[in-house]
């Protein structure tokens, strides 16, 4: 399968509605990344969930984050696990400045340049008309 034929996998493609994280993906599409936060105790809820594990409040809000962060960890697949991705394929875990951690990819940074604590900032990439991905590039 070529890169053009393979689409980035996401549940939305199977006609399955993603539930808890809908606003996250909507915010990426709007290029204004938001994370879920407990409306009662301001605990970040990542991954998104219906209840705050800290105070059991079911009230939450979606709050825009700065998009600044640092690299927390990463893996590099010698062979990409899906035809939508090039090989080798690197996946990163990013510590957002506000606290939550997200899985993502980096843009313009080679795997051998990655280090824990490397400062990054968000960039947006339309995978297609369904999905906009939030990725990270080197900052400063």
């Amino acid at each position, binding site marked *: 399968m070529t890169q053009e034929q393979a689409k980035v996998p996401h549940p939305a493609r199977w006609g399955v509605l993603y539930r808890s994280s809908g606003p996250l993906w909507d915010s990426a599409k709007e290029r204004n990344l938001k994370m879920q936060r407990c409306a009662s105790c301001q605990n970040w809820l990542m991954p998104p969930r219906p209840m705050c594990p800290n105070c059991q409040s079911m009230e939450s809000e979606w709050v825009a984050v700065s998009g600044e962060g640092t690299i927390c*960890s990463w893996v590099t697949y010698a062979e990409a*696990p899906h035809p939508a991705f090039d090989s080798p394929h690197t996946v990163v875990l990013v510590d957002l400045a506000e606290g939550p951690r997200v899985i993502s990819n980096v843009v313009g940074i080679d795997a051998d340049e990655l280090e824990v604590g490397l400062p990054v900032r968000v960039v947006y990439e339309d995978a297609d008309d369904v999905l906009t991905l939030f990725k990270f590039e080197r900052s400063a």
Partner: protein
Amino acid sequence: MNSIKDTVAIVGVATTEFSEDSGRTEYSMACEVIKAAADDAGVPLEDIDGMVKDVVDGIDAMYVQKALGMETLTYSSDSHWGTSPLINAVTALAAGICSHVVYYRSANNGSGKRAGSDFRAAKETKDESLDLIRYDLHHPFGLMGPAGSAGIGIRRYLRDYGVGAEQVGWVPVVCSEHGSNNPHAAFRNAPLTIEDYLASELVVDPLRRLDIAPEVDGAIAIVLSRAELAADLAKQPVYVGAVAMGSGTNGEHYSSYSRDDIAGLPEMELMAAELYRVAGVGPDDIHVAQLDDRYAPYVPMQIEALGFCGKGEGGAFCEGGDNLRVGGRLAINTGGGFLSEGFSHGVNVIEAVHQIRGTSTNQLDGVELAMVATGAGGPADGVILHS
């Protein structure tokens, strides 16, 4: 508090052949292995009144029960991954619900659904409930399969504690040495050397090919009985000193990224504390353990979490292999581990039973206590067995 300590014994064990392609159904293997375990125990099938398995098996217990001609069960359950069904078996026996319970696992994971294929499986089944986080938040970025998910935390362990490949590599080396003596090990080869390991390809960096236990086809069964019934059966009873699980805050299967510290196995620490409390023993009393070597770096992480050395000292503990070999401080995976026997939960419990019976192909002298741990990187479960 009431205790399950010594209320239950493992009385029979069996495995089918393990291979990369069984050429037969999980249904067929399940029936064969349960009959063999009952025969090993000397328990008539009709006396078995409980049946437990894990949720990922292909074959429903109801069909297995019918095929085996087991007329009545008073207890049946599916538990989560790993050897956690054992806790259900012990619970049912200790509570007096059952007299004899069989735990089985039958899976064509080598030739069929591989652990790395969760996305394809989910796509086919349209089952988002299986693990919504992976499909929704990880797959769009190409984080797929457990090796990738696990590798994120493993990288931080290796980096934060300065644990190197020349230390971790002794885990696959020692497992291959043990596996080379075990005719049952599906991936039995000439023992590896540390040079083989260091030359092994980084398939999901930081994990090398030789870090990753291969999936297999095969089935295992274990018959457990109430302790007062166990003494009169065919084999030496192997008593359950403790069985426990551990599930930690913000835990996920391999991807517990929301925790402050992603470089440890807190579920294993929780499980171990409970095992030691119930069994009334500590790490100093244990000299043989079957650890979860699905990914080799999980072994030094477990050795730390189970209290055999201090935090960050697991790499040094493994280096050179002598601590891990038969006769060392903690002989591990004496059947070859998942790395040599093939990845199938439960097979490591059977090797622990062999050590206490004195029938291992890498037998230690005078084993009175043996520990089993599985579920590294997720909800953990384990057992302490004794003679």
